[in-house]
């Protein structure tokens, strides 16, 4: 564990401790933006598994987000299923779709994998747009009930509906913390090291006894499941869904977050989502002062992305693996893998 990343963990922990008090000290708008940031942070951490840990460029991640969101939307709106029941179900469905998408692409790499994942999202969006009997098509799903906590199933007459931003804030914080801790644990586990080995050199990894099929499939399932969870949350938080939300552009946005933060860096994924979402909000406010319509913020967005890549091509917090192939970390990992296999 490098010094740099320890510092980040401490900083992250400090922020995490300060975060619970945000709704107390700030306005509803700030809380709303913070929830948005956390949803994207979860998505970014989930996506990070494929391009960041396994070197598989996934351009269709937002498809799983859409699957999770529509599962939650349809089940809660039409069948009154509770959010707490939907989440595990949607995560399982997302993971299943991840495996189904991943299985035929196991042989593919690089840009061929990218285009297949891309085609997958387009198919999901087409499905959501055209299967009107299920999704109401372009009209979208309005009036999705909010998340509720109740003890009615225990026979106690107590119920709390999430009607303001504040409870969603804590729910999002909880979700992000769970994913964050899980990611950090996985990164440091046998699974995470196997992924990193696949990223560095699939052939060498395979010859060291890493089963590419198994580990890649787990990565597909894991990444997709996290995306579906974020989708569930988003559906019940925004209370409205439309197919347009899950277009390719969203996948790009999440990809930009992890690349800006530093590919493969979990803290980087969070920082990337803070930077890009906050930037969008700041620009929305600032640009009209210069007489420009708020839509031009994407112009500035594009420009800033170009500039960051120009001067920090490895992202804001490049992982060691990204900067040099023969880095200490990799050698250390290879030694550890070797030791694990022999001892």
């Amino acid at each position: 564990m490098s010094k740099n990343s320890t510092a980040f963990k401490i900083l992250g922990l400090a922020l995490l401790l300060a975060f619970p008090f945000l709704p107390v000290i700030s306005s509803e708008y700030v809380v709303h933006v913070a929830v948005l940031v956390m949803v994207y942070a979860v998505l970014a951490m989930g996506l990070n598994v494929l391009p960041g840990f396994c070197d598989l460029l996934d351009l269709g991640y937002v498809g799983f987000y859409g699957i999770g969101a529509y599962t939650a939307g349809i089940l809660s709106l039409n069948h009154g299923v509770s959010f707490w029941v939907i989440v595990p179900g949607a995560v399982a469905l997302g993971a299943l779709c991840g495996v189904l998408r991943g299985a035929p692409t196991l042989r593919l790499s690089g840009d061929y994998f990218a285009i297949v994942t891309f085609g997958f999202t387009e198919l999901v969006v087409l499905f959501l747009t055209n299967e009107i009997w299920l999704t109401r098509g372009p009209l979208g799903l309005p009036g999705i009930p909010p998340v509720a906590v109740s003890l009615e199933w225990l026979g106690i007459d107590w119920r709390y509906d999430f009607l303001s931003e504040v409870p969603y804030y804590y729910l999002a914080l909880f979700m992000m913390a769970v994913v964050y801790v899980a990611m950090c644990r996985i990164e440091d586990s046998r699974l995470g090291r196997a992924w990193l080995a696949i990223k560095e050199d699939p052939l060498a990894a395979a010859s060291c006894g890493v089963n590419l099929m198994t580990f890649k499939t787990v990565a597909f399932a894991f990444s997709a499941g996290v995306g579906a969870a974020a989708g569930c949350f988003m559906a019940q938080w925004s209370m409205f869904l439309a197919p347009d939300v899950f277009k390719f552009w969203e996948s790009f946005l999440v990809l930009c977050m992890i690349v800006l933060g530093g590919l493969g860096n979990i803290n980087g994924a969070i920082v990337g989502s803070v930077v890009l979402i906050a930037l969008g909000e700041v620009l929305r406010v600032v640009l009209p002062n210069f007489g420009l319509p708020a839509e031009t913020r994407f112009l500035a967005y594009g420009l800033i992305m170009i500039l960051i890549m120009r001067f920090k091509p490895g992202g804001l917090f490049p992982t060691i693996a990204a900067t040099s192939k023969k880095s200490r970390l990799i050698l250390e990992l290879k030694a550890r893998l070797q030791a694990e296999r022999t001892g």
Partner: protein
Amino acid sequence: MFEQQLFNGLTLGLIYALIAVGYTMVYGVIELINFAHGEIYMLGAFLCITFIQALGIPLFPAIALSMACCAAIGVFIDRIAYKPLRKAPRLAALITAIGVSIFLQNIAMIIWGSRPVPFVRAAVPKVFGETVFTLGSVNVSGLQLFIYAVTTAMMVGLTLIINKTKVGTAMRALAQNPVSAALMGINVDRVISFTFALGSSLGAVAGILVGMYYNTISATMGYNAGVKAFAAAVLGGIGSVPGAMLGGVVLGVAETLGAGYVSSQYRDGLGYAVMIAVILLRPSGLLGKSVGQKA
């Protein structure tokens, strides 16, 4: 009916091919998925109608001027945005390309507005709109014939440039191995600039043809065309110029036939479905070289 659909599909496919060629050439020499290529196509169409409307230039010189402008824009983008990242991780260049794409799309929205604009009808010769030839059971409009002629001429020209000229040889050498190409005395940067110029000017032509064909252009049209061309390039085997041509045509025909016989709502999806099926059967595309894939 079938022949007519096939013909319409071929027309569309040839336009896809024209854009896909620009993608694949850039990929061939610098291994970059140039997402901004779709925006070049969009700019080509807008520049052309601007030249016609604002400067009163006739259609054909306006097309030539628009091609020249797009070539310059392509080279400029490469110099400003991509060149500094030649040695950076590949994803950095990809994100930059996305940034450029967003930037250009929004510039276009500021200049020309975000609503779709009709192509200048008056500038398009009447022959294209009114003449309809009948070949067997197929009705061919003058405009379709024009698209056929232009795209075919461009493809033939491109093939000749790549295979017969010195700069084409240099491009192929660079695509094979940049280091040896440089050692052989090839000015790598100049060849890359030429590739961008060539690809961008073909993209501009495609944008103008689509504008004429559907009689509408918009600042967001680059997105769809861009991803279709990307799909076509991968379908044919990314990096392969004949592959991109074939991929474009296959995609166009698959889409048109699919829309006619299966479901018009899933039109775009059918194109992707065909593409995914081909890639799964032939992981390096129709005409792609098998690149010693790792495990």
